[in-house]
């Protein structure tokens, strides 16, 4: 047994590949958080009064809140006075310009990350909004999308040019007081993406945002709002990386999705924030609130996430199924290796009649990784004929990691069905032996078995992302098998 133990061990330890830092002059405000900080951020962004007041309200509520303690994650208390709440590359001071004017250092950074921003170099069919620390530095294909009435821009730009949308929808899915981190985000959020798809329009390309934390001691608090009007549909991708640092950095984002009647939003994430080193030094605290609201009948919101990075992940992408016959989906692969911790899952809130939700969660734990699936399925009295199916599988590599499942099910009527299936398995020594006996290396065998385990989720990802995710899993697992 020991020998295969070691093989697995060797397999799970490979260096983080996006850990480089970009040397670029930043325009940052001093660390610390006060009403003054909130006003300063709002002023830097030249925001209308209503938004400032909204932020201040959030800040005041946040002061009275405490961090959630129910999640099974552990970290020293965060000193919120020690964080820089706004940092932008100096060259980008005046906000995103045309691509030709983007600082070449930034273009190089994204190129190195495999996200070329020059439109001619881009994978055909993907529009990108690139967010660097606190600001969006470039958005591609904007004009082309505008031709069909789609608005795809940085959040700051939306505030300037489409304040009416912001006013109407901001905070309506995730209210400012929703939770500690959402309140903090509402007070100090810096940038993110905004999408509006007009009635009946099928977005002709994948939209994506690529988040990069670069500056030291900086928190990233992005805000994303996606609105799909009646009968509209869009597929949206999100990717993220950060340099390797010994200190922990906080990332507290909020994503709000609104799907009106017959609209369809597919939101995919490949989260690869710096996970910290083998001993658990450094890494991102990824405390994120993501929620979608199916406001109209037959609306559909689908979350797909591949979570391989971050020191700690605390994240429950959820769907409120308000419209009759609306559909919510959650497909997740979460991997924890070394000392990583993840407490993740979803909430499906059934309100409308005949609403349906599907949850497929695949957790992989290696090294000393620590993982919990936490899922809530709530079926209101009004949700007659609602259905949920949950499948929750854990795969353990080695015997020092952990996986836990916490399903919460509340059903308030008797015409609904809720099914929950769960399994935990260890990567079999026999599976590994079999694959190697056929000639595969131990690495390839493990990555094949793990990818097989995740298949149901990967098939939900857009093509290029699926390939990326498979590679990422292989890399994150290297040196793990133990």
């Amino acid at each position: 047994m020991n020998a295969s133990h070691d093989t697995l061990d060797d397999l799970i330890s490979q260096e983080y590949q996006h850990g480089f830092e970009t040397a670029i002059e930043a325009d940052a405000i001093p660390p610390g958080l006060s009403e003054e900080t909130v006003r300063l951020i709002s002023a830097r962004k030249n925001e209308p009064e209503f938004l400032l007041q909204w932020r201040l309200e959030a800040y005041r509520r946040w002061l009275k809140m405490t961090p959630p303690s129910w999640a099974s994650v552990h970290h020293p208390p965060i000193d919120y006075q020690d964080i820089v709440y706004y940092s932008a590359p100096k060259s980008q001071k005046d906000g995103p310009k045309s691509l030709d004017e983007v600082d070449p250092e930034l273009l190089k950074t994204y190129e190195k990350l495999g996200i070329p921003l020059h439109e001619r170099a881009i994978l055909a069919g993907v529009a990108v909004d690139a967010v660097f620390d606190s600001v969006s530095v470039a958005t591609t294909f904007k004009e082309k999308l505008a031709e069909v009435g789609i608005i795809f821009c940085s959040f700051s730009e939306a505030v300037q040019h489409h304040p009416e949308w912001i006013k109407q929808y901001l905070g309506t899915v995730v209210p400012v007081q929703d939770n500690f981190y959402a309140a903090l985000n509402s007070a100090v959020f810096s940038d993110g993406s905004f999408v509006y798809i007009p009635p009946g329009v099928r977005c002709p390309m994948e939209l994506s945002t690529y988040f990069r934390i670069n500056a030291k001691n900086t928190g990233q608090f992005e805000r994303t709002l996606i609105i799909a009007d009646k009968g509209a549909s869009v597929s949206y991708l999100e990717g993220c990386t950060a340099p390797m640092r010994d200190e922990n950095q906080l990332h507290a984002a909020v994503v709000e999705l609104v799907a009106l009647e017959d609209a369809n939003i597919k939101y995919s994430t490949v989260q690869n924030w710096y996970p910290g080193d083998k001993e658990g030094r450094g890494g991102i605290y990824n405390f994120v609130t993501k929620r979608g609201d199916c406001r109209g009948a037959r609306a559909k919101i689908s979350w797909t996430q591949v979570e391989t990075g971050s020191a700690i992940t605390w994240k429950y992408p959820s769907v409120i199924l308000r419209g009759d016959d609306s559909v919510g989906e959650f497909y997740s692969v979460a991997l924890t290796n070394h000392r990583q911790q993840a407490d993740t899952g979803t909430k499906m809130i059934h309100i409308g009649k005949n609403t349906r939700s599907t949850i497929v969660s695949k957790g992989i734990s290696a090294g000393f990784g620590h993982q919990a699936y936490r899922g809530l399925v709530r079926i209101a009295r009004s949700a007659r004929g609602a259905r949920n199916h949950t499948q929750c599988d854990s795969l353990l590599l080695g015997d020092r990691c952990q996986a836990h499942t916490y399903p919460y099910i509340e059903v308030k009527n008797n015409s609904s069905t809720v099914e929950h299936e769960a399994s935990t398995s260890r990567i079999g020594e026999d599976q590994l032996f079999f694959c190697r006996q056929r000639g595969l290396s131990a690495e390839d065998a493990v990555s094949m078995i793990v990818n097989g385990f995740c298949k149901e989720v990967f098939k939900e990802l857009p093509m290029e992302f699926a390939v990326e995710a498979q590679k990422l899993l292989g890399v994150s697992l290297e040196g793990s098998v133990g």
Partner: protein
Amino acid sequence: MLQIKELTASVGDKEILKGINLNVNPGEIHAIMGPNGSGKSTLSNVLAGRENVTVTGGSLLWHDKNLLDMEIEERAREGIFLAFQYPVEIPGVGNVYLLKAALNAQRQHRGLPELDAMDFLALVKEKMKLMEMNESMLYRAVNEGFSGGEKKRNEILQMAVLEPELAILDETDSGLDIDALKIVSNGVNSLRSPTRSMILVTHYQRLLDYIKPDFVHVLAGGRIVRSGGPELAHELERDGYAWIAESGAYGVGL
């Protein structure tokens, strides 16, 4: 080409193989029979390099190379194939995907170019015909939901595609229906060649009616207690293993 000398091996602190001696030359077929729990699968596993079996003594030579120094996958790439007594399931991994990855890993080791999807598919389909397998099996996850017999057939398909120099078939006949046994045996026979050797682990004469062995060995209590020609299998079929206990050999083993 395979030389096993005074091989002893244990699982945990239980000694299972207690001094095995066996030579296999090119083109030979050796049948290994013996009571349940006598160490047949353990021997097969040791040859393939399974890590939960510890070799405690003796030597294993493969073409003058020390097998004991070689990793599992190295042995496979050097031409040693094991058809499992209990093939494992690998959910989500397509049968065809595993086969292609395996074949290309082996080809690469031998300095051959990788087969592309088209050539590979042509090759597999031809082998599947030989095994009278339904093509849809290619696209299912490895052994997942396969019947016992289908799993065994799948093992031999892998052997046919990988074309090993030494094939160890651990009770491939168990669980096969009468027709399937014929098909699998035909498949195995079609792979017989003057350079390819086989070790057939089996409990039944039936298989040996189809695949004629050159030698038959009886493994009992971790030792080879008798060796002979094909007639030995008939004798065992008729008399069983009671004689081992009488002769004392079995008792020593357990």
